């Protein structure tokens, strides 16, 4: 759990982060979204003390982060940046082993952990352990960057625009992987992005930031239905807010008992996708099918419409 209390950063007369407070629950993903210059990266970097705050404090699992030297703190916090910053003179395995080595793990434990992570990230150890970063594709580099951040099993993972350099298809895959990591390792994740769709897709909670202040910190649906500030609705988008809202709910969650003559849709599809399918096929309802192939009920256009407004 990350607790941020009245956190501020001033450079001379300029206030970059202005008395920000919020909490990231354990095993959840919070996303800070904002335009460039909103102070979101500075806020993130104050949590692992790459930037020292000028006011306020940060608690990790209830403990003040200033209670230990900054470099020791950082070894307990995963950190992924845009461009990944892989060490070009070290192999993939050595890159991933960075923090465990700093922590003095024994070699066999390091080797086992590196191999495990390579497999989790679908990188064959035989092929990739000895490769150098420049031999990898952008998507592979990104995965190695995340694997390196997770190597020492940190409870908290900080990510600064981690998918910024990826093309849309690989980006979607990387986002899936991140949700998977949260499930697999139970990591608490705080991610910074300027992409509102990414924020809505990944975040259990989203903080909208502007000029150093958090305008609203809430679940995505609440940001859409009850924006606390005109700027929040401007940033989340007004004209497609109904579709954004629909994209936050899956067919499985919204299905009601009953049969449908209409097209079948997977339970994992979002209501937005289901609506699109109904518009395309001209049907008025769809049958929801679980991952196991069993029917999960049905969805009518009217039911979907009802979910698309506050």
């Amino acid at each position, binding site marked *: 759990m990350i607790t941020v209390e009245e956190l501020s950063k001033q450079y001379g007369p300029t206030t970059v982060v202005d008395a920000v407070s919020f909490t990231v629950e354990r095993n959840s993903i919070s996303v800070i979204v904002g335009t460039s210059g909103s102070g979101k990266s500075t806020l993130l970097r104050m949590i*692992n003390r*790459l930037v020292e705050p000028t006011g306020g404090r940060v608690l990790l699992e209830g403990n003040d982060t200033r209670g230990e030297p900054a*470099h*020791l*703190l*950082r*070894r*307990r916090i995963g*950190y992924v*940046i*845009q*461009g*990944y*910053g*892989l*060490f*070009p*003179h070290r192999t993939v395995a050595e890159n991933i082993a*960075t*923090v465990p080595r*700093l922590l003095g793990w024994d070699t066999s434990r390091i080797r086992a952990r590196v191999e495990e992570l390579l497999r989790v990230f679908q990188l064959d150890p035989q092929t990739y352990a000895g490769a*150098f970063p*420049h031999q990898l594709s952008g998507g592979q580099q990104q995965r190695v*960057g995340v694997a*390196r951040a997770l190597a020492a099993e940190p409870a908290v993972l900080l990510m600064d625009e981690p998918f910024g350099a990826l093309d849309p298809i690989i980006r979607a895959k990387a986002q899936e992987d991140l949700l998977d990591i949260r499930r697999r390792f139970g990591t608490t994740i705080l991610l910074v992005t300027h992409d509102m769709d990414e924020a809505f897709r990944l975040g259990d909670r989203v903080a909208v930031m502007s000029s150093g202040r958090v305008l609203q910190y809430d679940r995505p649906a609440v940001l859409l239905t009850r924006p606390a500030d005109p700027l929040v609705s401007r940033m989340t988008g007004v004209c497609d807010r109904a579709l954004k809202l629909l994209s936050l709910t899956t067919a499985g969650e919204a299905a009601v008992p009953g049969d449908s003559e209409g097209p079948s849709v997977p339970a994992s599809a979002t209501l937005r996708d289901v609506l699109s399918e109904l518009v395309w096929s001209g049907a008025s309802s769809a049958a929801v099918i679980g991952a196991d192939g069993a029917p999960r009920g049905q969805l009518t256009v009217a039911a979907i419409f009802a979910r698309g407004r506050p």
Partner: protein
Amino acid sequence: MKRPRGPSIDRLGLLLSVLGAAALVLLPFVVFKANRIVLGDARGLFEVLPAWAAWGCQAVLLLAAVVALAVPGPKLRLAAALLGVVVLSLAVAAAADALTPAGDKVVRVAPGAAAWLLLVCLGLMATDAITRLRPGPLTRVLLLGLFVAVVGAALAHGGFDNLSVMREYAVNATRFAQELRRHVGLALGSLAAAVIVALPLGILCYRVPRLRAGVLGTLNVIETIPAIALFGILMAPLGALAVALPWAADLGIRGIGAAPAAVALFLYALLPIVANTVVGLKRVSRATVEAAHGMGMTNWQVMTRIELVLALPVILTGIRVVLVQNIGMVTIAALIGGGGLGTFVFQGIGQTAIDLVLLGAIPIVSLAFAAAVLLDALAELTDRVPA
């Protein structure tokens, strides 16, 4: 674009062949002098060697020229050039033996302009072939080692003892060893001292941009002072120091001699190393350094394990510049009693004994060349980041 079929002429080969042929026809092959300082008279290839040997030598040189003109394969070109060098050297040695009466220590036989020019042409052909082969750094060092071993063995064997340079060597053998050690010691010692000072200074300049312009500007000014003038400038303070502190004088610190030379070389060495350290560190990606800090490395670990390692090839390039520059500049130290191989050069100039000048100059050039090859290879080996 593919060229039309038929023999195509290699341009470098054409230039080298024409130059070599003209030299062989127009210029003296060896120069014979009755003693060390009189003017010599020219001797052609056929005047000094038996007909079969002269024809043989010409045949080999002709073969090298044909290969240079018409054979594109670099391996064959290298072999032909090296064969030419070997045969040419043997011919010069044989000429010296033929012109020197048995037991005579007074007459001097030196390679003439033709021999030198041919050597240059064949050398260029060989280096061009090696460049085309693109050998890796280790192969280049190996080639250098092989070359040194062959030349060393040939000199040790005594086959060239009748050549004038080797005559000078024979007379000065003890001093040669001493001055060679002195030369290398001055070049390496001032380099080591400069690295110890310039590396931290470069890191500081990188870290504190406000310092950068001032430090680099000052070092630039030092670089523009002519060596002789710098020796002069250093004479007064070092002389005063020696008078004020007797123990300093005991350490060899005086207004003239090795001390001002070492200090001057040290000062000249600072700029390339400081500048390259700054450039090398700047080359390291910001994201990499940020990630290193973010992983929890201490400042020292980030500097030594990431930044300096990644900057090393560029820093080594600076050190290479300094070492080559030092080996050349130590020569001038001889003027203020600093010793080194320059002693022979200036002594030779004073006595108009060109052979003595060569006894100093040839090893200096060879040392600089070897240093350049070694450090280039080292810089390449440490550069594990492809551009």
